[in-house]
């Protein structure tokens, strides 16, 4: 491609004129290409070619190809039909009321098309012989691309941060950790405590007084009261103690039942 006179459209390698008829049609880029090649062989400017001779050469070529039973594209046959018509128009004088294009007009059209195709080929050749990018002309070898620096502006609030920390610390607490064990007096415990406190006292004493030492802790207060009351009822039923309440919601008095001497070993 260094050679500026490179001929990009070298005609397909063809044998001399007398052997034209043996050339394979496959070497051509369609019927116009074939016609152009045949026209060039007339070795005159396209403007000066004999269209009639050209048509005859083309028709002869197609005839030979068909005799050899070579498959030929429909394009070539259409052109052959058109050229046969052109030939007849050129040879038979035009009648005055003939509306069809004259043979001369048809010939001019063919010449135009051949010239135009040749011109386009020449133009393509000129294009390819221009100082092309990457062949004679170069771009910057070490381009310095614009780097888009994506800066992330991270967003997080102090609250998010603290929450994340707290959540993790809580998550870190082992699951089998026992929460504060609530003190619950079982009825049995309550009964033992009550019997021990009442002892052999035959005086009416408010139950709360006996339990005073246990009622200070709010956690124990409820359970102590509830369990002692339930146990006291049981002790009354079994005849160990007596209960008295003077008025509703008034203090509950308790005393050893007279004659219950075996209190200590009821169980």
């Amino acid at each position, binding site marked *: 491609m260094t050679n500026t006179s490179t001929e990009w459209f070298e005609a397909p390698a063809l044998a001399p004129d007398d052997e034209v008829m043996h050339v394979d049609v496959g070497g051509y*880029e369609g019927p116009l290409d074939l016609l152009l090649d045949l026209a060039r062989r007339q070795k005159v400017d396209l403007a000066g070619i004999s269209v009639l001779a050209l048509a005859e050469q083309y028709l002869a070529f197609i005839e030979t190809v068909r005799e050899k039973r070579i498959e030929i594209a429909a394009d070539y046959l259409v052109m052959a039909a058109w050229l046969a018509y052109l030939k007849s128009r050129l040879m038979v004088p035009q009648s005055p009321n003939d509306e069809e294009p004259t043979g001369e007009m048809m010939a001019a059209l063919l010449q135009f098309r051949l010239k135009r195709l040749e011109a386009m080929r020449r133009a393509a050749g000129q294009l390819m012989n221009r100082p092309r990018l990457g062949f004679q002309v170069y771009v910057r070898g070490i381009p310095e691309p614009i780097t888009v620096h994506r800066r992330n502006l991270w967003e997080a609030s102090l609250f998010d941060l603290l929450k994340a920390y707290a959540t993790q610390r809580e998550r870190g607490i082992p699951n089998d950790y026992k929460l504060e064990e609530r003190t619950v007096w079982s009825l049995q415990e309550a009964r033992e405590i009550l019997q021990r406190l009442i002892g052999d006292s035959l005086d009416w004493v408010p139950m709360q007084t006996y339990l005073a030492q246990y009622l200070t802790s709010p956690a124990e207060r409820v359970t102590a009261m509830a369990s002692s009351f339930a146990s006291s009822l049981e002790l009354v039923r079994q005849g160990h103690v007596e209960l008295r309440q003077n008025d509703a919601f008034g203090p509950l008095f308790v005393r050893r039942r007279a004659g219950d001497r075996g209190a200590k070993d009821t169980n």
Partner: protein
Amino acid sequence: MPEGEIEDEIERLEVVERNLRILEALLFASTEPLAPADIATNLGDGADVAALLDMLVQRYAGRGVNLVRRGDKWAFRTAEDLGFLLRREETESRTLSRAALETLSIIAYHQPATRAEVEEVRGVATGRGTLDLLMEAGWVRMRGRRRTPGRPVTYGTTEAFLDHFGIESLADLPGLEELKGAGLLSSRLPPSMQIPLPFDGPLRDDEDPLDPEDLADAVEREDDR
């Protein structure tokens, strides 16, 4: 000249020099041609990009690297006459088939052109692959659809085509004047003297925009690259 005016003039020249440096840096940095609009954003307000480009073209006119116009864009390229020295071994030349070359030149000189028009000039059917290949090379693009029955797609050349072949604009296509004079850019018979010129502006009167599917195809092709 009063002293104040001299100072103004000095300041003006300093701004111009600064803008020229920025222009130089941006154009040097990119392998792709840049549009004046891409450059303007980096220059001070009210900078005359066209005038600056012109100054830069002149400064580099005789140098080993030139500032060249490619369509509406600009790029630094090595001087054409030094090509022989810079030949790189690794450049593999993609050889285009005769069909592809002819199709390319017909589209370049006759654009906007439909496939049927390309075929009419060549006198033979054009394989779909040929157009695809040219589009893949980035030289040919679908422009729109011709406002005729069947609404055929119209094709035209790209900026990359201009860049590759070192052409400033379509008006500078080699031999264009000659072809025009000989009436060879017409798709009709010579006496109909209306000679269209290659046109790469926006859609012409007889063109519709591409259909959405056409564009999807093009994007797909782009992705394949």
